[in-house]
């Protein structure tokens, strides 16, 4: 250390008191008991942090200190304990924080090295592997996702109702994005007429279960993703058990009974449902988030009678359209999983492919809704007969 840096250190020591690892340990213990409110900040580099850190610490590398600390610790009256590897960088970081107006700044003498030598607890951060870092590099570059967000996606579980027109693009992109567990429930087999839009399947899968075909395609795309298949229809006997394991449910169903069944079960289990539907050249998307926005029954308390359900007939759909709508569902799902942006809660987004137009309608919660209103009993509602099956 040269003369000038010794001088900087001397001045920093005048500004910033130092605690030993024992004192910090004691203060953290008291904090754990609710006595004191202090923030522990690790100012080392990322590669040092990756080898272990003090549990509960925030990571603000010294190089980004001035830029990030006010976001990490907005309250400048809170005591801030800084540490680095040996106690030098944290002392200088402390002097910077003092300049920035932090009133109560402490540097841990001896740093992480001494902390560890004393045998105190060390946490190991979870990090992405080399291959994952490469695969998800474009996510890592977005601050709203980043490494923490990517780890969150890898820990996330999404259930797709149907591996058809909407489920195919949604599942494919969610798998590419690294959503760690994807459940697929579908009792159908692949038919040639599906291939115009259901991009998870291909010619060699005709006659195979769609859920199995989906698994093959997804696993070939991304080995990080675990696919759980249910060759089954969602019904009263299995709905609660199946959705319990998931964070978000993507509704790509084609019938009212399943939609009402899912609606009620998702309110009971407090799971958001990303709803989509398509018809010829138009589609719509919304998010039903229990108790934050309306549910499907707020919107449509009853299905239409069989004779009046014009959408039951094989109406046809432009093959690309469910691609657009299914991907909007995938986007909403990622937003919900990461807690970013403004999900389409209480908003119905419609897309008219021929006109090239998106528009939006506000949806309202019905305070009298039998499923999510004040005196609701979602466990006890009719799901109605399959009006389409009846009219067919």
């Amino acid at each position, binding site marked *: 250390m040269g003369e000038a840096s010794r001088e900087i250190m001397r001045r920093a020591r005048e500004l910033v008191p130092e605690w030993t690892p024992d004192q910090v340990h004691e203060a953290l213990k008291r904090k754990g008991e609710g006595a004191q409110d202090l923030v522990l900040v690790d100012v080392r580099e990322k590669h040092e942090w990756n080898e272990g850190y003090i549990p509960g610490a925030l990571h603000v590398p010294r190089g980004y200190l001035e830029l990030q600390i006010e976001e990490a610790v907005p309250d400048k009256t809170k005591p801030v304990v800084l540490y680095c590897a040996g106690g030098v960088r944290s002392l200088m970081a402390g002097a910077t924080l003092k300049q920035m107006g932090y009133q109560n700044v402490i540097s841990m003498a001896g740093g992480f090295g001494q902390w560890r030598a004393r045998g105190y607890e060390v946490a190991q951060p979870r990090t992405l592997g080399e291959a994952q870092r490469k695969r998800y590099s474009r996510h890592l570059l977005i601050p709203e996702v980043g490494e923490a967000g990517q780890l969150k996606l890898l820990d996330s579980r999404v259930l797709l109702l149907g591996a058809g027109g909407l489920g195919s693009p949604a599942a494919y992109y969610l798998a590419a994005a690294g959503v760690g567990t994807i459940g697929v429930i579908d009792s159908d087999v692949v038919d040639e007429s599906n291939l115009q839009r259901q991009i998870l399947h291909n010619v060699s899968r005709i006659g195979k279960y769609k859920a199995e075909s989906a698994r093959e395609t997804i696993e070939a795309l991304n080995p990080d993703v675990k696919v759980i298949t249910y060759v089954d229809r969602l019904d009263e006997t299995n709905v609660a058990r199946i959705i319990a394991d998931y964070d978000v449910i993507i509704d790509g169903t084609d019938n009212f009974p399943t939609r009402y069944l899912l609606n009620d079960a998702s309110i009971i289990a407090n799971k958001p449902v990303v709803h989509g539907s398509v018809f010829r050249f138009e589609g719509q998307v919304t998010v039903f988030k229990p108790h934050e926005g309306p549910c499907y029954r707020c919107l*449509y308390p009853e299905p239409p009678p069989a004779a009046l359900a014009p*959408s039951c007939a094989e109406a046809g759909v432009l093959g690309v359209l469910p691609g657009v709508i299914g991907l909007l569902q995938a986007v909403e799902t990622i937003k919900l999983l990461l807690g970013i942006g403004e999900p389409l809660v209480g908003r119905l987004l419609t897309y008219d492919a021929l006109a090239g137009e998106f528009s939006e309608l506000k949806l309202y919660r019905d305070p009298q809704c039998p499923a999510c209103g004040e005196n609701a009993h979602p466990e006890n509602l009719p799901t109605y007969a399959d009006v389409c099956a009846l009219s067919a």
Partner: protein
Amino acid sequence: MATVRLAPVLRAAAGGAKQVSAQGNTLAEVLADLYRQYPALKEQIQPEEELSRFVNVYVNDQDVRYLQGLQTAVGPNDTVILLPAMAGGGQE
């Protein structure tokens, strides 16, 4: 005349039109004029006296259930949107 926008599933009953015009000062009157022009729509939108529970009706993007229902005022420059529950998903 108010503009009435029809959800895709309703268009067959209106000769394929996406948007039609109808006259009236209230939603009830506008719908009556709509059914006069396209009788097949009546059954799909309002088979009974009251607005049916499987069709959502908006006047200028506001759900009429939270306005004055059939008595909601409709001006000549207003847009009525009819949006029935759709069965069609992506599965088929």
